[in-house]
């Protein structure tokens, strides 16, 4: 399919580009953990291992297969296929290790709401006690406050998802900015990137507010601004996200032979 509003013909889907963008932000010494519905981060991590980060480790959420062999990537984080892996840990052990803080360096996150300072919310829209929309729940998102780098991704770039402030703080980001983040004394480093079908964003070091890092090929900055429910921090001239290389794309397609990302 084509990227939204794309004049030219894109030969990759937004989800495929998102997997590549996430992979580009992983390091060779990372140990990454992901949660619910994690096909996209599964592919991102496996791609990184196949390219610039051969020593990266990743743990697939519920089953806790470690470096699953992805034959192919699967939509459910609890799918037995993810136990075709180098090793596996009991979920109870992974939840313990998430509390150590010094084991997992990357945590993939998302939410029904993601706010200007990278806080995530999967619990409720509106008042928690009588929500307008009750979400599923927060699962492991409170651990975001303990992990080195948080990579946020979502397929929904719209003003309902990208709000000025989350209605329920389930996945801590930078709270209300530098002062509150410092005051919180959390061990984690906070979010480093937000990847969507339209763009990749990071955070302004001074204000810790989200800003455009690059817009995906064929996407206009004005589209992103219109799709975002808060004012993005100033980021000057916005480059276009580098398209997936032929190598990256062929590896993504091999890992995602089921086409979970291709169609999105």
């Amino acid at each position, binding site marked *: 399919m084509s990227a939204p509003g794309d004049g030219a013909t894109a030969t990759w889907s937004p989800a495929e580009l998102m997997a590549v963008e996430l992979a580009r932000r992983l390091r060779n010494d990372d140990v990454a953990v992901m949660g*619910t*519905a994690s*096909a996209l981060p599964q592919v991102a991590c496996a791609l990184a291992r196949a390219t610039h980060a051969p020593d990266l480790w990743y743990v697939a959420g*519920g*089953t*806790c297969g470690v470096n699953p062999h992805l034959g192919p990537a699967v*939509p*459910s*984080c*609890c*799918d*037995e*296929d993810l*136990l075709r892996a180098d090793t*596996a840990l*009991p*979920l*109870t052990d992974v*939840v*313990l290790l*998430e*509390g*150590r*803080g010094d084991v997992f360096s990357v945590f993939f996150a998302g939410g029904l709401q993601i706010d200007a300072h990278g806080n995530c919310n*999967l*619990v409720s829209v509106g008042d*928690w006690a*009588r*929500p*307008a*929309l*009750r*979400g*599923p*729940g*927060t*699962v*492991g*998102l*409170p*651990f975001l*406050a*303990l992990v080195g780098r948080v990579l946020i991704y979502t397929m929904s770039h719209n003003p309902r998802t990208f709000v000025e402030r989350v209605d*329920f*703080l*389930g*996945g*801590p980001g930078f*709270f209300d900015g530098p002062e509150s983040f410092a005051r*919180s004394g*959390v*061990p*984690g480093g906070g979010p480093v990137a937000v990847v969507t079908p339209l763009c990749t964003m990071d955070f302004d070091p001074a204000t810790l507010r989200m800003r455009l890092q690059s817009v995906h090929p064929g996407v206009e900055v004005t589209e992103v601004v219109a799709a975002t429910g808060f004012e993005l921090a100033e980021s000057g001239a916005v480059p276009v996200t580098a398209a997936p290389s032929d190598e990256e794309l062929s590896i993504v397609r091999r890992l995602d032979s089921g086409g979970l990302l291709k169609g999105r």
Partner: protein
Amino acid sequence: MDKVVALDEAVARLVPDGVGLLAVGGMHLQNNPMALVREVVRQNRRVARLLTSPCGALNADLLIAAGLVGEIATSYVGFEHLGLAPAFRRAVESGSLRVLECDEAYITHGLTAGAGGLPFVALPAGLEVSDVWKANPESYRLVEDPFTGRQVLAARPLAPDVALVHAAMADAAGNAVLAGAHFVDRAMVLAAKTVVLQVERVVPTDEVSRNPVGTTIPGFLVHGVVEAPGGCHPTASHGQYRYDENHLRTYLARAATPEGAHGYLEELVTGTTEPGYARAVGLRAGAGDAP
């Protein structure tokens, strides 16, 4: 002592009406003990408080759809990539279901505390910044760390009165094997006062004993064993069959309205038996697509 019991008798005898804390095993779309859950609905057993794994799915939503659940302690009820949980969402938004908001750390470590008779569990520094514990003062409190003097987050143990858990196989004495991922099923078995296992097959003890370390559950923790081949449907049974995405989508569509949910329950649960359910959903007894 033979613990093998028929599905209806297991629920009649081991799941009291109004059970204080009922834990349902499995996680997301996998290993939900659905035969037991459906029988709880058939026998109209009210659940004062329901506890899910870190990620509940149909095991919780079906009980909620049947109007049997007063409160739920959970960190997630949903259908992962397939969508939100319709009955859970409707019940919470309408105010008819009280949520004890939990996070994954509490559900996991709280069950460990329940298994260990620990008075409470102190949680890692940093978790206190989320809104979760503020929304659930009954389960979470602050406590002063006696070693550092710092205020840290503490939570109550989770000790289910009854746990309904799926296992691949068990012998007549309740010795069981967990296939595939264990999720928090093992922790639920260790923490619960009464454990009812739903298994694909009842087997001789030597089949259970082949590789005892790390994958088995001793029968002294188990009070009833129900043979229910295919009984996780429409969720997956690790080592046996995958989840039935079409059926799950059908449930989500029908349960989108109270009337639709009622119709689903009448047609496939309260109005029929497990064999009737298996026929209706086209389940080949004891199997689905092998993973």
